[in-house]
């Protein structure tokens, strides 16, 4: 009775260890990938009373910065309320990091013709 028991303990331990190691490596890879994504910053230029690009696809955790190159203020305001830059003055910028996947339609609260979308995948 003791023989198979002693045999089984190391076996179980080794299996557990291997699984743990796999999980650890997998976890590190996942963390590294997430860290690489989080470090990405995308730029949307505001010029000519328009957002360029008008549609931007990013990964969850990425940052988007808006740079105002017009001679008057603008805003980047999500219609669903997810973010609102408030006034972005001339030659100023504002950024937001979006962790949650989804489509984010946004406008300039000052200029109703300015409409754009962020797609977070």
């Amino acid at each position: 009775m003791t023989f198979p028991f002693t045999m089984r303990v190391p076996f179980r331990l080794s299996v557990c260890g291997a699984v743990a190691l796999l999980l650890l490596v997998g976890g590190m890879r996942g963390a590294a990938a997430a860290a690489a994504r989080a470090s990405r910053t995308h730029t949307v230029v505001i010029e000519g009373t328009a957002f360029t690009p008008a549609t931007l696809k990013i990964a969850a955790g990425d940052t988007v910065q808006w740079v105002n190159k017009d001679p008057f203020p603008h805003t980047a305001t999500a219609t669903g309320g997810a973010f609102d830059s408030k006034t972005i003055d001339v030659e100023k910028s504002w950024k937001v990091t979006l962790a949650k996947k989804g489509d984010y339609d946004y406008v300039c609260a000052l200029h109703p013709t300015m409409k754009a979308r962020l797609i977070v995948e």
Partner: protein
Amino acid sequence: MKVSAIVVAGSLLLSVGAMAQSVTDPQIAAIVVTANQVDIDAGKLAKSMASSGDVKKFAEQMITDHTGVNKSAVDLVTKLKVTPEDNATSQSLKDGGEKNLANLKTLKGAAFDKAYIDHEVAYHEQVLAAIDKTLIPSASNADLKALLVKVRPAFVAHLEHAKHIQASLK
């Protein structure tokens, strides 16, 4: 009130119609600066006189945006060493602006708001027509043309904004 708004709009229309088929860069500079200044002046009056919060906010934005456009226009013509040259169109714009102010000063409350916004709709429509038909086609300096192209969408946005407020006032 309605009649005076139509008269003012009509004088704007005349000023655009009176434009020569082609204008020089110094004339364009004067037209741009005058067009912006006229709307800044109307905005300043509306900022203190308007009774609706939306109208007041719109007036404040007109002051900010047109001041910004004028600053880039003045910076550019200074850089290009272009001296703005008064002409029939810039003079008509100035006269139209003065008539508008004189008319607005006789009004109060909701009547003021309506007259100011009605004029803003007419003004932005006419300035857009001038930008498209005369200013952009006539501009000979590439930087001046680029500036006109860059600020044009702001006039479209202002027009849409003004029309939206106009509909809400009725």
